[in-house]
């Protein structure tokens, strides 16, 4: 979403779902994985909203749908591409929105091409794209040239139209298994009922084409004008209560907190960083360095920029690759917090081998999970494993204070409800103790690599206080000596005079207050904005890009869902929600006041993710003594400016759209063994169910949850059941080239045999939440799943691999 809209976050909120007229739930089984969503979806449904569910299996969410379509796993882009084509051909798009709030009119470089499965600029040797042709035609001021109409053959709109011209409903049916008339029904229904809302989760991301699938959603919503409005948008339902928070804090290896680009070894000095990324990233980086190094960060020493280790872009393993690299000796030690890698990382054999090669593994968890007991697993010989395993008993969620940031970007404070049992400690205390001890050990060192630890500002108290950590994220203003009181105060302060540990969190704890701790659930508008409940980043805005909910005069387009408006008397943007505009005093007719997507350098939503670095900063960044560097780079999607359909890495069929490039040419392939459909004819998709949470480390130790879901299973169609002589309740052996397991079979009508490229195709589905430990042990799905990742996000393709199923 970030390359399309400018921010990689869910656009609206949970409560906002009650405002929708239509839902496309595809890649999410929210009734099972996010039960709270159903509360709001059902409220919308009671008012007449339609629910469309697309899933490889008829799920509990599907049981509440008006329209259900069974899809072959990994083929989303085929039917979504057909929907894009249909919206354009039938002129179902929102012309005002497309012309004003997207890059549809901008002209694309004449050398841009898509030929024989590849976009222009592909380098066979490195398997990477050069983006130079994925660019705009620019005028002498480095501004993209705008076409006069959507009919201009060079404009983005025509590029989209041309690209998806191959995606007919019939082609989409051949690939996805969804009947053409059903795809048409979905497109007609979703285009007619506005505002329309798209919900997705891991069903959409866990593919080698995951990012591009979500890009299809962005294109559809931009075409239909379904962004920046109550009840509209794209909702990325986060898998854990604090996943949004952890991404905000940079759990991605190319980020620093607040989504700043992580410096690479090409940016040796702070000046290099500023030149590369512009003042817009330079200022928050300085504020971050001030938060991290406190008084030790000064203008004279580049605020300690030199102490930050720099990334080597050629040497940046993503998490699913770590385990291979352990085997190669690249890593000697692993801290494993809040993760059960032995269950959750695809290709279990690889994980076990990797962990076996470590010198030390530290696991902090509330239960002795599979990862901390990996050496006990059948087939491994503990005598041959030298890894020293240290288990740190962690406190449970209710035993620690701090914040969690949910999918709605809502930063919510909670107090400790209970004292941790025995020697268990909150993660913060564990890390605080490790850091303090490490700093003692490094005392007096002159080694440059130790400087970051010795110079760090670590002032969370004798017993680390999470509120002081939140204050650090909020930041301080040197001029007042106080906590920064708002995002605006941070933005207006000269560079080097404010600190913030995560600039998007600025304003969460103004002096004397903790806005994350607010629990006023009043909702005067009835739109579920709940502005006084906790604090949403950025600046307590509840619906992102809400400028797009207004017309050219700044008046709300939908009188029943008014978010913001231009108050011409006061000369200010105001409203029920916080206005998501560059400058609240710039009217709707000014260049700033027209922009609905202010984080993009073009100021508009990106149908085509062109390579572009603006010459004029789209956010005013006040500067002190240094001149502003007015560049702002657009977020890129590494494997194409428009989504293209590629088959999953393990696929039962050929790619009829791109016979010569069947799979994503840039996919990161980690597994070494791949099955042939002759031996492994069925497509396995994996998922969670509502009774067990993620890798099950907690829930499989809760007896009441084990009672309602006591064992893993595989769901198969009745046709397949008949073919292999299996009836409901029988045990089956599920095997891939990487391993096998035995589980109970559910033989059901909820999966049907599909017709794919003229042949019958079977999908089988299995939850992945089990492992050999806990009160409720069971075989892990990652015995058979495959490790190949999306080239941009690094997310593994858990949703499709080839297996065989036979009677056990």
């Amino acid at each position, binding site marked *: 979403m970030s390359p399309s809209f400018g921010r990689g976050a869910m656009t609206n909120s949970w409560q906002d779902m009650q405002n929708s007229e239509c839902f496309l739930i595809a890649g999410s089984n929210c009734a099972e994985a996010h039960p709270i969503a159903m509360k709001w979806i059902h409220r919308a449904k009671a008012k007449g909203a339609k629910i469309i569910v697309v899933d490889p299996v008829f799920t509990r969410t*599907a049981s509440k749908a008006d329209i259900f379509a069974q899809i072959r796993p990994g083929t989303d882009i085929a039917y979504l591409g057909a929907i894009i084509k249909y919206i354009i051909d039938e002129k179902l798009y929102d012309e005002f929105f497309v012309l004003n709030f997207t890059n549809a009119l901008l002209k694309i470089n004449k050398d841009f091409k898509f030929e024989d499965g590849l976009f222009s600029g592909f380098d066979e040797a490195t398997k990477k794209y050069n983006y130079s042709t994925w660019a705009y035609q620019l005028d002498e001021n480095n501004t993209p040239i705008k076409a006069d109409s959507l009919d201009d053959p060079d404009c983005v709109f025509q590029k989209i139209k041309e690209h998806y011209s191959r995606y007919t409903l019939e082609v989409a049916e051949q690939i996805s298994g969804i009947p053409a008339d059903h795809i048409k029904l979905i497109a007609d229904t979703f285009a007619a009922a506005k505002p329309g809302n798209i919900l997705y989760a891991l069903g959409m991301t866990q593919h080698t084409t995951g990012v591009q699938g979500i890009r299809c959603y962005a294109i559809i919503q931009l075409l239909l004008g379904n962004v920046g409005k109550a009840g509209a948008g794209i909702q990325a339902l986060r898998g854990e209560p604090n996943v949004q928070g952890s991404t905000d804090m940079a759990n991605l290896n190319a980020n620093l907190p607040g989504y700043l680009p992580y410096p690479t070894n090409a940016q040796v000095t702070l000046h290099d960083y500023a030149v590369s990324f512009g003042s817009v990233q330079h200022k928050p980086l300085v504020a971050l360095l001030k938060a991290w190094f406190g008084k030790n960060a000064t203008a004279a020493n580049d605020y300690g920029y030199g102490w930050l280790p720099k990334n080597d872009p050629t040497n940046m393993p993503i998490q699913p690759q770590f385990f291979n690299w352990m085997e190669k000796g690249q890593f000697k030690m692993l801290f494993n917090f809040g993760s059960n890698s032995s269950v959750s990382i695809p290709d279990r054999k690889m994980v076990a081998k990797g962990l076996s090669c470590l010198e030390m593994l530290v696991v902090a968890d509330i239960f002795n999970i599979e990862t901390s007991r990996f050496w006990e697993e059948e087939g491994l010989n503990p005598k041959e494993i030298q890894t020293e395993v240290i288990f740190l008993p962690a406190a449970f969620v209710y035993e620690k204070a701090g914040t969690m940031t949910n999918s709605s970007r809502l930063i919510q404070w909670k107090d400790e409800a209970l004292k941790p049992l025995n020697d268990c400690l909150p993660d913060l205390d564990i890390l605080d103790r490790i850091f303090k001890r490490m700093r003692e050990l490094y005392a007096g060192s002159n080694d440059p690599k130790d400087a970051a630890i010795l110079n760090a500002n670590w002032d969370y108290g004798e017993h680390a206080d999470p509120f002081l950590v939140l204050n650090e994220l909020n930041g301080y203003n040197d001029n007042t000596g106080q906590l920064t009181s708002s995002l605006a105060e941070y933005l207006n302060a000269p560079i080097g005079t404010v600190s913030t540990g995560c600039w998007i969190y600025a304003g969460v704890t103004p002096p004397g207050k903790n806005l994350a701790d607010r629990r006023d659930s009043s909702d005067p508008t009835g739109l579920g904005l709940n502005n006084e409940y906790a604090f949403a980043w950025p600046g307590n805005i509840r619906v992102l890009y809400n400028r797009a909910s207004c017309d050219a005069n700044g008046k709300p387009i939908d009188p029943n869902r008014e978010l913001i408006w231009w108050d011409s008397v006061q000369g200010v943007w105001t409203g029920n929600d916080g206005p998501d505009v560059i400058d609240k005093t710039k009217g709707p007719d000014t260049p700033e006041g027209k922009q609905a997507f202010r984080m993009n350098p073009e100021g508009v939503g990106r149908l085509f993710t062109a390579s572009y670095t603006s010459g004029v900063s789209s956010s005013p960044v006040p500067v002190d003594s240094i001149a502003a560097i007015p560049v702002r780079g657009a977020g890129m999607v590494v494997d194409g400016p428009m989504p293209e359909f590629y088959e999953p890495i393990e696929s039962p069929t050929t790619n009829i759209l791109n016979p010569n490039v069947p799979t994503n040419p840039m996919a990161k392939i980690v597994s070494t063994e791949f099955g042939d459909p002759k031996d492994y004819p069925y497509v396995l998709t994996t998922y969670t169910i509502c009774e067990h949470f993620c890798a099950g480390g907690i829930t499989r130790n809760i007896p009441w949850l084990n009672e309602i879901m006591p064992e893993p299973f595989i769901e198969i169609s009745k046709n397949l059941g008949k073919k292999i002589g299996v009836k409901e309740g029988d045990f089956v052996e599920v095997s891939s080239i990487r391993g096998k397991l035995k589980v109970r079979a559910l033989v059901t009508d909820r999966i049907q045999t599909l017709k794919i490229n003229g042949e019958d195709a079977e999908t089988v589905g299995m939850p992945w939440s089990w492992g050999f430990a806990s009160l409720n042990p069971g075989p892990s799905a990652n015995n058979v799943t495959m490790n190949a990742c999306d080239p941009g996000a690094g997310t593994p393709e858990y949703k499709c691999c080839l297996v065989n199923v036979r009677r056990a």
Partner: protein
Amino acid sequence: MATPKMVFVDTSLCTGCRACSVACKAWNELPPEKTQLITSFQTQKDYTYDTWTYISFHEKYENGKMDWFMFKHQCYHCEDPSCMKACPSEAIYKTDSGYTLIDHEKCIGCGYCATNCPWGVPMVNPQLQKSFKCTGCIDRVENGMEPACVATCQPGALSFGEKADMQKLAKERLAEVKKTYPKAQLYGDNIMGGTTYLYLLLDEPKVYGVPAKPATPISLTLWKDLVHPLGGIAVGAAALAITGGVLANFARGNYRKKAEDNDDINAGQ
């Protein structure tokens, strides 16, 4: 005096997450039981003395359309409960708020309640020699709280309130749902004197595995309303036959047929 209450079970909104079953066990401090997958996603087979509410799953595939129905089972708290009629020790009573409760001081664990309930709800704990079932969370309700199952239901399938309000809500929802499910109907309003748990079903009761017209067994009615009041005067062939019918009910477990069906599935394992 407490006013009549009602729980409205809107199966069109139930997602089968089973949080109700867990919340019931948590509030009532009931232990977990050993289970396994039975059919579809169902793992709790039936009522037990430690399982007072559970969800059954029903898959229906017709003309290319899939339906997956979920049904929350618990005591229906009938207005005219046959368990109360059957209880020889007068341990079962009705509250003003509409609940059917068991007084464990008086319960002798004979199991007549279990045998004569058309849904087979009450279950006798053989160790304690007492019968157990859903209490409607009377201890919560009388203290101004919703029943535990209702309080935890996220998709909004369970609503609790004054009987008249719930009946109104049920009728409104029925009218809405009938547009897409023509066979939709209310279940509970005109059976067993009316039930305190009123259901909106999307299809016929049999699809959900529950009897369409549950009634007090005739043998029980004859015994309690005709023979028994005569104080044993009419002892004779007819009375013996009736007694035999009651006992036969008990032995065969007429109302537990559903459980037997499930056993067939288990036999395959």
